[in-house]
């Protein structure tokens, strides 16, 4: 374990602040902790609104907002080669030693990993989502993933279920795939000073109200539970196309005074919503990891969740009640949770969460993966092409063609803008006193 080399890491994803979600959170906290470990981290994402150019965040985290416009669901238009010059410039300018891409949906991530491999950098990829194998969209995504992962040095998944999924989708050997979960900022998600008093039990739901998050299950479960327990109240935070259905349900069963709809909750306010409740309800139909459960548990809430994807791995059995994604079973699980509730002490739960999950631990484990990736032997173009060729009868040849064109384009860019002409960033350290 003599690997105390300092790395210069480029994190690439379409998803970063000011956008908000699990991936954005992961990149930010991981980068912060890596900075604390002494590495240098640079983030690359696409422009958000008029936020383009270079920005510095807390702790000297440098963010490149590349001037490419998102065209669909915060994704940039896939151009294959359009991003090559700027990625090359950033890689050389920042003296990057390793590229780390996040999220399979992100086109920017796929392109950056491809160009980085062509330029001979070691790359690591983190997969944050689960995918099936049956529909057209998944088949397409799986091929794209196979292309990116064919040549990736190491891959990381957020749960064991996600690892199984990624190995099946990409044909990567399982030894190359690491499981490093997300974590939670326990300092931010603290339980309230005292529990909400009284006889009332508050069940909190915070999720986007869309089909995949199981909003339709909520429509069935909420009236049932309200009928069974007159002292239960629901607080639903989040917005989405299914919000109308929930509001219809509320009116149909005249539960206006017992189901509170908050609309979209900004992340800074999530904690204050969470501590107003006793039970956290997650009704997702698919979930690779689910950070929301961690945040709730860290606030001392007992979680009731559907048994899907990686959720069963997330918490010890005595901190979560799992149910099949079926309204009847979920009502049973809520009954069980309500009976367990007197035994739950939010402070104790919070202390346990502090030991179970820290971003510092995540960063340390990621560092090990980086060291492994850097130890991978260098490969010449022919060896790499043969790997692509084995990806499929037609796809393999197509992938090879894409890679060969990339190599040629790189040569062209090298002629057009020689490496010596690109200015390297000067070394400087940010003082550690947080003033902003």
């Amino acid at each position, binding site marked *: 374990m003599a690997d105390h080399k300092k790395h210069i890491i480029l994190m690439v994803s379409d998803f970063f602040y000011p956008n908000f979600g699990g991936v954005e959170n992961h990149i930010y906290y991981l980068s912060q902790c890596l900075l604390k470990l002494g590495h240098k981290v640079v983030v690359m994402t696409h422009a958000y609104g008029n936020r383009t150019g270079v920005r510095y965040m807390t702790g000297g985290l440098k963010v490149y907002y590349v001037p490419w416009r998102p065209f669909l669901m915060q994704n940039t238009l896939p151009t294959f080669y359009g991003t090559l010059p700027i990625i090359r410039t950033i890689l050389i300018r920042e003296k990057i030693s390793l590229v780390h891409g996040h999220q399979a949906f992100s086109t920017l991530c796929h392109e950056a990993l491809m160009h980085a491999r062509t330029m001979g950098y070691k790359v690591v990829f983190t997969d944050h989502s689960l995918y099936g194998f049956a529909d057209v969209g998944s088949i397409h995504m799986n091929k794209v993933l196979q292309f990116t992962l064919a040549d990736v040095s190491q891959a990381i998944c957020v749960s064991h279920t996600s690892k199984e999924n990624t190995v099946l989708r990409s044909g990567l050997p399982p030894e190359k795939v690491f499981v490093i979960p997300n974590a939670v900022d326990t300092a931010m998600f603290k339980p309230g000073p005292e529990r909400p008093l009284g006889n009332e039990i508050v069940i909190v739901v915070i999720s986007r109200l869309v089909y*995949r998050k199981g909003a339709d299950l909520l429509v069935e479960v909420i009236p049932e539970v309200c009928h069974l327990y007159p002292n239960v109240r629901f607080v639903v935070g989040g917005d989405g196309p299914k919000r109308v259905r929930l509001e219809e349900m509320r009116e149909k069963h005249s539960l206006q005074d017992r189901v509170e709809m908050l609309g979209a909750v900004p992340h800074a306010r999530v904690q204050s919503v969470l501590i107003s409740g006793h039970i956290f309800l997650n009704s997702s139909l698919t979930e690779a990891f689910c950070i929301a459960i961690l945040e709730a548990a860290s606030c001392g809430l007992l979680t009731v969740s559907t048994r899907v994807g990686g959720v069963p*791995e997330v918490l010890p059995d005595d901190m979560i009640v799992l149910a099949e994604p079926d309204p009847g079973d979920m009502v049973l699980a809520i009954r069980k949770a309500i009976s367990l509730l007197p035994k739950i002490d939010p402070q104790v739960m919070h202390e346990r969460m502090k030991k179970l999950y820290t971003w510092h631990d995540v960063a340390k484990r990621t560092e090990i993966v980086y060291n492994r990736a850097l130890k991978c032997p260098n490969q010449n173009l022919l060896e790499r092409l043969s790997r692509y060729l084995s990806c499929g009868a037609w796809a393999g040849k197509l992938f090879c063609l894409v890679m060969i064109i990339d190599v040629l384009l790189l040569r062209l860019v090298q002629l057009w803008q020689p490496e010596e002409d690109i200015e390297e960033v000067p070394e400087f350290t940010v003082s550690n006193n947080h003033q902003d």
Partner: protein
Amino acid sequence: MVMDFNNSEISSPPRPRWRKVAYGGMQPGFDDNNTDDSFLEDMVMNASVVKRDLLKVMQDSVSISQYLCIVALVGLVWTYTLQSILDENSLLLLDVSLLGSGFIVLLLTKEMVSLNLLFHYILNISFFTTGLYVLAPIYHTLTKSISSDSIWAVTVSLIILHLFLHDYSGSTIRAPGAIKPPNLTSCVSLNASVVASVFIASRLPSRLLVFAIMLFSLQVFLFAPFVTFCIKKYSFRLYLLFSFGLVVVTLSFVYMLHHLLFALLLALLVFVSVVCPYWLIKIQEYKFEINGPWDEAKLCFDITD
């Protein structure tokens, strides 16, 4: 299971077992890329694959070859009318006899036939026929300025489109016993056939001929799937017999018209009812379905928006 996870410092002599959990940091003694026997143990392969047998698939393909023959017969009538072999009277006779036989089939195969329903049908059909008769002069002059070759080309492509999109499993107009309402593709298919009939009709010399041929084509395209659907529901054996008879009649008529077309149709029918089923069975063994905990859960109730 006891949940003591903070014993990473206290290394107990028996090596702790690796657990498939994400909490508690790195598990002592195991790397993060540890893969044990439990890897992929929840994967299910080919869970919902239906085993098909050749006979069943061939029986199912009968409805396709039967409908191909119906369309071929319509094409024959069109050709004979354009060549003036069939005149107005014989065409009208054909219309009436088709309508009559269709009604008889409906009466015989339906369990519940009320006088009311019959009256309803007759009223609808008389409206339909009157409308068509009134519109016949318009169809007559519709494509005067277009050459016959283009009309034939468009008609043939429309008929091919019709055959590709036709819903062979049900009937185009909603039969009382049909499970689901017709979908978009079958509607497109029906419209393609109607447009094709209008184009052909517009090439004919007299208004009465236009009316007769339109009535004939629409009767077949609208009601033939319905009638065959009724026969199929009534008795599958009868349906097979009917289809076989239809195939023989069609082949003999096409043989009289043109030998090359006969060979083509025969090859098509063999392909549809023998080669394709065999092929389907053959490629079934390559079927590979993967299911596991990563799949999106299916809701067990209907969402009514």
